[in-house]
């Protein structure tokens, strides 16, 4: 069997990176937006930890699915993906005062990991079909690319969120509003995410 060269793994890393940063297939980006919506720039470590839990979950399902250990109906997966986004958006809106409880720090990575399990099944069928004979390297490279892509998306997201927070703070100077800019932004982003993902869930319903 031929030994893989560096160009081999680099190609699959690029493939994963392109896949996650493709704005045409916005479901992963929307999920990352929902995950990041509650964080400030200074919380980047916590957000990165949550995003990595998502990658771990999604790598696990991808690995199980491409090796035929797990076989999930594609139509069901396509429906469940927007459901995970809706659930994350709802959690953002419901859990109001995160500063009081340390529980968020524990359950959010678990939540992201579980939802990652669903997302991983999303493209498992494609990889399983295409790389029937030698899946290990493409799978590894693809996941590394996805993690790198997620970090890039999160960096851009935090830059945009910081700008939005400053804009909200500037508008509020003359007003009498009590909510913190980060809460206003989190609610706004979560509302957008909820509306879009609910629509997708209805359109993708398998019944």
């Amino acid at each position, binding site marked *: 069997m*031929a*030994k*893989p*060269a560096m*160009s*081999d793994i*680099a*190609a*699959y890393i*690029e*493939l994963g990176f*392109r*896949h996650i940063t*493709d704005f*045409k*297939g*916005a*479901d*992963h980006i929307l999920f990352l937006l929902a995950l990041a919506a509650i964080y400030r720039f200074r919380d980047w470590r916590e957000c990165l930890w949550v995003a990595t839990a998502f990658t771990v979950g999604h790598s696990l399902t991808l690995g199980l699915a491409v090796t035929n250990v797990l076989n999930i109906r594609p139509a069901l997966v*396509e429906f469940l*993906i*927007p459901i995970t986004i809706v659930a994350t958006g709802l959690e953002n809106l419901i859990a109001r005062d995160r500063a009081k409880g340390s529980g968020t720090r524990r359950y959010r990575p678990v939540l992201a990991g579980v939802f990652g399990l669903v997302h991983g099944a*999303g*493209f498992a069928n*494609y*990889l399983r*079909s*295409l*790389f*029937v004979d030698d899946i290990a390297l493409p799978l590894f490279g693809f996941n590394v690319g996805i993690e790198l892509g997620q970090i890039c998306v999160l960096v851009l997201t935090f830059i945009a969120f910081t700008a939005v927070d400053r804009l*909200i703070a500037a*508008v*509020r100077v003359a*007003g*009498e*509003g009590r909510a913190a800019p980060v809460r*206003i932004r989190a*609610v*706004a982003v979560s*509302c*957008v995410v909820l*509306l*879009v993902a609910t*629509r*997708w869930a209805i*359109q*993708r319903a398998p019944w």
Partner: protein
Amino acid sequence: MRCVAAIVVCVCAAIAVEARTAWTHPLHTTLTEIALDSADGSMRLTIRAFADDFSAVVAKHAGRPRPADYNLPAADIASYVASAVSVEDPSGKHAPLVWVGLRRTGDLMWITMRVPSVRTLHGVKLASTLLFEDFDDQVNIVQSTYDGHRHSMLFPAGDGRKLKPIP
């Protein structure tokens, strides 16, 4: 504050209305394996493509309706692949592809073509624009095995018909 809330509501509504279609997240890719046949010095290309997308593009290229069972005449497939995969031999000349065969496994099509009398993969250049017509997020993987090593190249839709040397 009310003004900000009104803007937020308007933006939310606009984005939700704009997201009319349920964007799924398919992986639009093909895999082309290249190897040198030491017996006759020809270069063998085996293309793996998803039957639904591939048959639709081939049918469009041939001016036929999309076949429900993905079955297409070999001549149509060969003609499409020859138009989408360009090969230059080490001397820089265009090398025509010759049809070898086709098989189906599950939802995948395996198309085999060859370039006669290449003798070496060193200096061979290649471009793959398979399915670029239909998907602007298409990324074609070309994998070559030579001297016991496997190399991969990517041909993304944005790159156009750019010939790349086999590593």
